[in-house]
């Protein structure tokens, strides 16, 4: 039975909205643009930031020191490390890098109290941009986006659920759990309607 | 211990009115004759007595429950020298703030019997106290939105019927037939699958209940002292001796504490611990509208309930605020959610406007059932923990609490509601199947 061959296909949490087929080149014609950044790699990491063994080992594995200030993140050559809580980080990277990162971390953390989990199937990211991007998000979240400076990530509300927000270049990354994707996208679309909403070709922006 | 069902129905029988002390002069004839005299001849609804230095029984808190307790103490137990002390204006606590839903379709026998006893009293209350409390038996629907809701409804309706309480289980179409405005579409977030319906349930005029009991109690000689705050309890050898109040010291050997949201404060003064947390519960009314909703609709799943008052405003109740508070106000997202819930049930109300919004302080217990109990202090009794749903119990609660105080012994209907249950574990958990209890 070893001659089984398969062609596994992945689907992102927003797959069913067929965003690819609707996406357009981003320009100034619309107030808000958004699209999913599908199928990234997400690794949950927990450990004690006060434990130098842990932070050193993580740094060795990742090539970058973990952010440890409240609500901080660092951008790395391979993605982002978000501090979600004093003892919890989310590593976001290209899906292909996920396994390697995870294995490196696990190897480095042997014997150190910590937790490394591949959570890639469980999250997705939506990128929101355009001149009214922060207006639209102010319809969706109670967080003060003016306080969301570069280098900061916050966990906050989105409609009746919660997300992580990160201001990135010319827009916002909204990171959330898969099962809420349908709700969050609908909520975003609804909120963006008065500003004229376009599905962004993220390659083009 | 648990109430035996066999003999409970007989407990519901109400003693006939004795004594002719009750001022009967509210009538259409009196109104007409006064109309010709510019209404100059009306007398105070309740007396404004001077506070005395000692009473046989002091009731703390002139809410509906406190006033009813005093009334029944005087009327059914012949106690003469009673005071009701109220820190603000009478009927100004939760009695002034509730959405007035009266029903008795509770799940567990103990609770069902208690509330049914009360409902029976409601049915004769206007006549009994000669004050129109506008008890309106327009029926109450408790909607079900999930399969489990429907199981719970079935369970509760069957239990009600076996306890002799009117209740029906309806499917979605039957609900729609009775409330044509309601949205039973399958596409809503929580489609309505059915409801339990109690035809004898309804609403009453909250203020009238307080005033009617105040008037009736006052007629029996009860002293109602407003603007008198109880600030301390004088307890010796685990026996109550008197009360420190903002109007001075009062001697008494029996104190009934009926202070709803403030019960923990009173308990602290008595050195007793209470399984109570005080939370804001908010409500709001719309502007006044022509009749559009002639019944009461409650939904736990979407967190809202609504009826239309005789004045025309939609009276809408919200969910509880999670934090504890004594401030008689809550947070706006609760109200926002409730408005959304009402629109989910009645999409046409989207353009109707909220006129006024307020909050009360509800005394919640771990099992969503009240405490009507003696305490370890002799002569000190507590009646509290009605949480989000005690208005409906006002006459019944007063009636059995009066019995408890008069006899220093629980009435059979409130034996199960003693403080002991939090030690024995014999909770009467109305959360599970009856949900939020309004």
């Amino acid at each position, binding site marked *: 039975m070893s001659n089984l061959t398969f062609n596994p296909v992945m689907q992102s949490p927003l797959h069913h909205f067929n965003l690819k087929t609707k996406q357009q080149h981003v320009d100034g014609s619309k107030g808000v643009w958004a699209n999913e950044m599908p199928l990234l790699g997400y690794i949950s990491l927990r450990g004690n930031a006060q434990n130098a063994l842990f932070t050193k080992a993580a740094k060795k594995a990742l090539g970058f020191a973990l952010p440890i200030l409240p*609500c901080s993140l660092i951008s790395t050559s391979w993605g982002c490390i978000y501090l979600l809580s004093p003892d919890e980080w989310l590593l976001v990277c290209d899906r292909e890098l996920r396994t390697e990162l995870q294995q490196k971390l696990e190897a480095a953390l042997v014997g150190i109290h910590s937790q490394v989990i591949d959570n890639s199937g469980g999250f997705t990211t939506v990128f929101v941009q355009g001149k009214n991007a922060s207006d639209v998000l102010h319809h969706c979240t*109670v967080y003060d986006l003016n306080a969301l400076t570069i280098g900061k990530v916050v966990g*906050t509300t989105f409609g009746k659920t919660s997300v992580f927000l990160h201001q990135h270049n010319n827009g916002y990354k909204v990171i959330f759990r898969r099962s809420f994707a349908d709700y969050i996208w609908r909520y975003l679309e609804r909120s963006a309607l008065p500003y004229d909403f376009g599905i962004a070709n993220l390659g083009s922006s | 211990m648990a109430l035996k069902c066999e003999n409970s129905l007989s407990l519901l029988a109400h003693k006939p009115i004795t004594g002719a002390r009750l001022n009967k002069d509210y009538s259409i004839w009196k109104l007409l004759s006064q109309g010709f005299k510019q209404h100059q001849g009306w007398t105070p609804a309740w007396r404004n007595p001077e506070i005395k230095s000692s009473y046989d029984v002091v009731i703390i808190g002139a809410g509906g429950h406190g006033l009813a307790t005093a009334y029944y103490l005087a009327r059914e137990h012949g106690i003469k020298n009673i005071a009701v002390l109220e820190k603000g204006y009478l009927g100004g606590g939760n009695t002034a703030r509730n959405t007035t839903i009266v029903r008795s379709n509770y799940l567990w026998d103990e609770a069902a019997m208690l509330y049914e006893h009360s409902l029976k009293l409601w049915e004769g209350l206007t006549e009994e106290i000669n004050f129109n409390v506008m008890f309106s038996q327009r029926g109450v629907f408790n909607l079900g939105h999930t399969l489990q809701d429907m199981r719970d409804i079935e369970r509760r309706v069957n239990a009600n019927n076996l306890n002799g309480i009117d209740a029906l289980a309806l499917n979605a179409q039957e609900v729609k037939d009775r409330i044509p405005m309601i949205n039973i579409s399958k596409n809503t977030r929580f489609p309505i699958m059915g409801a339990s319906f109690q035809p004898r349930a309804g609403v009453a005029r909250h203020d009238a209940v307080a005033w009617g009991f105040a008037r009736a109690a006052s007629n029996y000689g009860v002293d109602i002292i407003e603007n008198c705050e109880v600030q301390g309890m004088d307890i010796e050898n685990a026996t109550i001796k008197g009360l420190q109040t903002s109007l001075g010291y009062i001697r008494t050997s029996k104190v009934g504490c009926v202070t709803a949201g403030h019960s923990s404060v009173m308990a602290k003064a008595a050195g007793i*611990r209470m399984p109570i947390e005080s939370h804001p519960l908010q409500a709001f009314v719309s502007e006044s509208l022509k009749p559009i909703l002639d019944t009461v609709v409650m939904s736990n799943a979407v967190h809202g309930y609504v009826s239309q008052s005789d004045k025309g405003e939609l009276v809408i109740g919200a969910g509880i605020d999670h934090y*504890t508070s*004594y401030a008689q106000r809550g*947070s706006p997202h609760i109200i926002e959610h409730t408005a959304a819930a009402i629109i989910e049930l009645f999409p046409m109300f989207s353009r109707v406007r909220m006129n006024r919004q307020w909050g009360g302080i509800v005394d919640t217990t771990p099992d969503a059932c009240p405490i009507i109990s003696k305490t370890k202090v002799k002569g000190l009794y507590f009646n509290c923990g009605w949480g989000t749903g005690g208005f409906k119990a006002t006459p019944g609660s007063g009636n059995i609490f009066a019995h408890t105080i008069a006899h220093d012994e629980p009435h059979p209907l409130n034996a199960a509601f003693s403080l002991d249950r939090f030690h*024995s*574990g014999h909770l009467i958990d109305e959360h599970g199947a009856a949900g939020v209890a309004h």
Partner: protein
Amino acid sequence: MFVINCPHCNEPREEEEFHYEGEAFIARPAEPETQTDAEWGDYLFMKKNPKGWHWEMWGHSAGCRKLFVVKRNTANHAIDGAWTLTEARAAYDAEMAKI
């Protein structure tokens, strides 16, 4: 509608990000089996529920998911401060010692 400073996120956040978690520092008896029914019942159910200053827990449910302690006045909704569980313990003990 409170603004609460999450001591872990180190910034003020809207009430909707949080979940109320009740009275703080209710100690679980070390040896439950030796408790009487009354003692155990008190631990399970009895609450301080003060009118006035209240030491309580909140969870930052939409944020860092940590529980922490807030000292809040239940009569007027003033907030005196918010601390991590460990920080608050010391402040709480000091205050209780005074009473």
